[in-house]
């Protein structure tokens, strides 16, 4: 990248200290400030969702329902699911890291639509208000899946308020996706060709396609539920002429791709981290690009694998099973490529890499158990049990949240201009990894033994494994609490990081930390592929430089 810096900046002025009023934050058009607004909001929602999880796991230590009534328990798992999926996981990497990094990584000064970006945050918060209101008013007991006709006819909760919250929230996703797509198409710096984009940008591009194409279906589905519930229009309830399976088809048509909304950006983060800490170009860049697009596409064709025992045709079940095996191929490609990237690298074990390794390990386990679930006859036995619960937590928490935290650590010096305490960060990663496995691995066994999910009262033979599962919670708690505190502290008092603490070649590392409001004094001209890491200065062997050997 040839950069011709022009002293257009006022030295020392950056996006954080340029203006300091509350209004300057609430009405900002700066993608970096909007990213921080999202960071604070989703952290708040994560805390709410976590409290629900702690209450549930505490209850589940006992088989007979010691603390809560069934209704309360049902509301807790609904709250946990809705908040974590729509108000934390889906916006996590895209809206925080993506918002902050996409313009910088492609050499732009902001998003294509800065005001739409801000509106997207307001819409998100407005949807969040509805969700919170429905919780405070009395909650919803349908599960995050809102299966009909229970949700549309029989449930007594505040289903419509919650559905409206998620409906509004969906528009935030659509705005963000649209913004990302247009930004990546139109605002790339000169020379930043598609195949010079960092993989993080590619995965967010794939994610944005899903945002834009799948989210409207969710909006339609929830509208139909509200119509049936509010006005008795028969759509899903067979007593008034509806079809209950129609809901499941529509819901999973959105919600399966939504899983890839959570995992694709995580894969993007991990690609960046592995390259950065092995100081090598990512192995099989093109294959990872096509794998990301392949996942986004195939992800739309596998929704029926949530319905193998639902009553859909068994022939449909078979086609969905085959397609589900196919969608596992691109995920496998990625894991193999990350592993191969380490080959002949210069690996340093900084905290972000530990998070990336956690991701690979837990995502692999989640993916492998996904293969078991794609196997029809096995799925019949383990679907709707704790096996499913464990599987998707390995993907969403073990995968997506680990990558999110890894990314937050890696780009923290860029976002705040300061470093976090390295040792604490490594310990947090270790606590999270151990705590997570302790909490969720026993659930695979519980599931195969037959314990159904969403059970508040369960047979006593399942108690031991439930206690083990709950015992992982304190470790997980420490693992989440540590970064929350030391990152909060470091943001103000950490040692100064300098523009490029990782000695990384990405565009985001070529500008000051924290970046100035307009990112680049002069729009850079890109001349080479990403990940052109120089070998570390202390290596002695004569070596081909990575750019020469891998740049096409």
């Amino acid at each position, binding site marked *: 990248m040839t950069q011709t810096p022009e002293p257009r900046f006022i030295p020392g002025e950056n996006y954080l200290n340029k203006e300091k009023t509350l209004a300057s934050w609430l009405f900002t058009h700066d993608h970096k400030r909007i990213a921080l607004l999202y960071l604070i909001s989703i952290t708040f929602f994560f805390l709410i969702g976590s409290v629900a999880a702690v209450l549930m796991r505490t209850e589940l230590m006992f088989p007979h*329902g010691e603390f809560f009534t069934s209704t309360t328990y049902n509301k807790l798992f609904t709250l946990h699911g809705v908040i974590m999926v729509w108000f934390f996981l889906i916006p996590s990497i895209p809206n925080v890291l993506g918002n902050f990094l996409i313009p910088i990584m492609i050499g732009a000064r902001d998003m294509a639509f800065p005001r739409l970006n801000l509106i997207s945050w307001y819409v998100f918060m407005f949807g969040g208000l509805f969700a919170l209101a429905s919780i405070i008013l009395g909650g919803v007991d349908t599960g995050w899946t809102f299966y009909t006709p229970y949700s549309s006819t*029989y449930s007594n909760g505040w289903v419509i308020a919650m559905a409206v919250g998620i409906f509004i929230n969906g528009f935030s996703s659509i705005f963000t996706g649209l913004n990302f797509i247009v930004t990546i198409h139109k605002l790339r710096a000169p020379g930043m060709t598609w195949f010079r984009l960092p993989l993080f940008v590619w995965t967010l591009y794939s994610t944005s396609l899903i945002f834009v194409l799948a989210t409207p279906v969710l909006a339609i589905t929830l509208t139909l539920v509200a119509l049936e519930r509010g006005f008795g229009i028969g759509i899903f309830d067979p007593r008034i002429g509806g079809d209950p399976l129609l809901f499941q088809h529509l819901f999973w048509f959105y919600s399966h791709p939504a899983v890839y909304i959570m995992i694709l950006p995580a894969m993007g983060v991990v690609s960046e981290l592995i390259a950065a800490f092995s100081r090598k170009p990512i192995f099989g860049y093109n294959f990872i690009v096509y794998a990301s697009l392949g996942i986004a596409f195939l992800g739309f064709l596998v929704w029926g694998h949530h319905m193998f025992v639902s009553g859909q045709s068994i022939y449909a079940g078979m086609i969905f*099973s085959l397609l589900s095996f196919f969608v596992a191929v691109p995920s496998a*490609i990625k894991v193999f490529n990350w592993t191969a990237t380490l080959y002949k690298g210069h690996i340093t074990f900084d905290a972000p890499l530990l998070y990336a390794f956690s991701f*690979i390990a837990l995502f692999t386990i989640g993916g*492998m158990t996904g293969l078991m679930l794609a196997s029809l*006859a*096995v799925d019949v*036995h383990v679907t709707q049990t704790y096996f499913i619960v464990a599987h998707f937590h390995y993907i969403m928490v073990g995968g997506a949240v680990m990558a999110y935290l890894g990314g937050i650590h890696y780009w923290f010096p860029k976002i705040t201009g300061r470093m976090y305490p390295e040792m604490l960060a490594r310990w947090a990663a270790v606590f999270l990894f151990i705590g997570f496995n302790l909490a969720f691995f026993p659930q695979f066994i519980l599931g195969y033994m037959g314990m159904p999910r969403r059970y508040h009262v369960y*047979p006593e033979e399942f108690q031991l494994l439930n206690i083990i599962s709950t015992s992982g919670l304190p470790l997980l708690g420490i693992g989440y609490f540590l970064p929350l505190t030391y990152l909060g502290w470091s943001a103000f008092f950490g040692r100064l990081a300098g523009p490029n603490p990782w000695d990384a070649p990405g565009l985001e590392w070529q500008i000051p930390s924290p970046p100035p409001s307009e990112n680049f004094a002069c729009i850079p001209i890109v001349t080479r592929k990403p990940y052109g890491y120089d070998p570390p200065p202390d290596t002695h062997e004569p070596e081909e430089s990575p750019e020469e050997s891998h740049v096409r």
Partner: protein
Amino acid sequence: MTFALLPYEDSSYATSVDAIFLSLLLLCSAISLAVFAVIIFFCIRYRKGSGADRTHYPSEARQIGIELTWIVIPFIIFVGLFIWAGNVYYEMFSPPRDGLAIYVIGKQWMWKIEHPGGQREINQLHIPANRNIVLTLTSQDVIHDFDVPAFRIKHDVLPGRYVRMWFKATKPGTYHLFCGQYCGDFHSQMAGSVIVMSDIDYAAWLQKDHDTPETLAAEGSRYFHSLGCSGCHENSQVVHAPSLNGLYQQPVPLQSGQIVVANDDYLRDSILQPSKNVPAGYQPIMPSFQGIVSEEQIIALIAYIKSQRTTEPPNPGSAHDPNP
């Protein structure tokens, strides 16, 4: 029940499902551990500052070869897994014709079971060992799920239609029955047990626990007359209605030109929505019994129609004769 990693292998599928699962477990563990081992090996060997040789990086062509290898091999394995597991799944949901037919109605929050002999139970299902059991299930309200982990079988139970599942329990004993699909407040208490008995015990259970109840078919026959079905469907000279003798499981040509099999679903639909599938040669004049008959009554009526299978030869002009 005691703690066991694999729940009891007590049905015809348990062995097949466990075999697939254990093979998958071995395969997946082997691949995962291999990947983890390679990562650890690279981490040690290529840690920063190590003296490992970093020259001779694989060429472009070699890299593509490596990529293709790890694309094609998983792909082939996946197709194999799909075929194996798909076969067992197909068998699971293709019930045999000769099974012992038992009806199950789910409602918030209980299972109502009806045996062909007229025995009824709630949250308990008594069955003989080593016989094919064919369950026909429906729900009165929301979606439930009939889940017996020991048999490795479950299926959602939907309102407004029948689903069928079948299994053969191999060992006498008492097994958990769960509701596997979230159905509201007391979902976790919508549980019961499946009691598998030897033939002798089962015969005794049929007799002893109940003072020779009216069979389902006999009960259905009563409804057939009291609901007025017999007025048209039994040798009526006034109304041109298909006779139901010998109808069960026979192909029925419809006005639309389609041919459907007169199974439980068809009979149920024909009672509740008579104009949906009108047999060829008849007028859609039957009134709907939606809201008039209960799920239990429909089941009894179907049992009655079923029982008319062999008593008389089908009349000319009955439903399965396309040209009356």
